[in-house]
């Protein structure tokens, strides 16, 4: 992330110096102001979803969900920790229902719990990122809303293709991650044996 950011910032600044130097500071300020708006919105939206998630948690529903998904989570994330399992279960289900704003707080919490303070992303953390990036979508709520607003004849027409496409993508993402992690593990073992 550090390298990507530094490289892209340097390249854009240099290009802007040639093209339009006065735009640099304005662009930066304007985008940061946009983030303020976004964050004000996020405080409101996260407040609602964190409130609802707390109710879900207190009713014991999240434990039930966690128990239901625990075989899958154990297989993918190699963890049986009840708190982590619960957070990942809520993260996955919120994503599937198209409520990304409920998924994010759970995802952040799960990442914190899985952190081993080594400064490096663990295999389980990477798996969570991939699972989030390729999540299966049962209800693409926002897209359907936008299609309705744009005057589509059948806004929900894309649900089945989205479901099929996201399912295939999720399978691809998970298998690829498992494969890479297996290769890395074997390589580590080998270098351990030779030294």
């Amino acid at each position, binding site marked *: *992330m550090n390298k990507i*950011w530094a490289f*892209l*910032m340097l*390249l*854009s*600044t240099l*290009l*802007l110096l040639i093209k339009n130097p006065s*735009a640099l500071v304005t662009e*930066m300020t304007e*985008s*940061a102001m946009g983030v303020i708006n*976004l*964050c004000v919105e996020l405080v*409101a939206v*996260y*407040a*609602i979803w*964190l*409130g*609802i998630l*707390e*109710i*879900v948690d*207190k009713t014991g529903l999240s434990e039930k969900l966690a128990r239901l998904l625990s075989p899958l989570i154990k297989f993918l994330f190699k963890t049986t920790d009840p708190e982590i399992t619960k957070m990942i279960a809520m993260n996955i289900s919120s994503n599937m229902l198209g409520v990304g704003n409920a998924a*994010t*707080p759970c995802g*952040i919490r799960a*990442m914190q719990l899985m*952190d081993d*303070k080594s*400064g*490096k*992303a663990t295999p389980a*953390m*990477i798996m969570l990122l*991939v699972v*989030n*990036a*390729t999540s299966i979508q049962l209800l*693409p709520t926002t*897209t359907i809303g*936008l*299609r309705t607003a744009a*005057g*589509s004849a*059948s*806004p929900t*027409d*894309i649900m089945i*293709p*989205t479901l*099929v*496409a*996201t399912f295939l993508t999720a399978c*691809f*993402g998970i298998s*690829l991650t498992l494969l*890479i992690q297996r290769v890395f593990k074997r390589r580590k073992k080998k270098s351990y044996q030779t030294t």
Partner: protein
Amino acid sequence: MPILIAGLMLYARFKKVETYNVFVKGAKGSINLVLGIFPFIVAIMVMVALMRASGITDMLIRLLSPIFNALGIPTEVSELVLLRPFTGSGSYAILKDIYTTYGVDTYVGRCASVIMGTSETLFYVATVYFSQTSVKKLSYAIPLALICNIFGTIIACLICRVL
């Protein structure tokens, strides 16, 4: 979604959960959560804005659309595919543009809709998710997730041809 929330409220009543107090307790965490991720979002958004203003985005689109075409991704959606990893609100704005320019129910319109499902605002999610951890080295996480998203885009374009 309304049915789910109504169901939850009923179930909470049945379980004798003090919904009001519990809701407030949960909602309280929101401000601190957003305060924690705010600087990370600023960093990513400033980068995206500068990339757009400096013309890097346009250059990338011009450079990558032949490759996208070869993979079966139509040129009309390349801007969406390219900006989607960086910004959620930005990509929804592009999606709206695609709807008005090419029509909602056309192949391009449907294709763009499905791409929104198979791809993710990856850089944003990665920044936010890892922001509260000790992680400095993401190792292969970003390239791996990007490959998955490109695969998803190709699949989306293929499936829209059939379904």
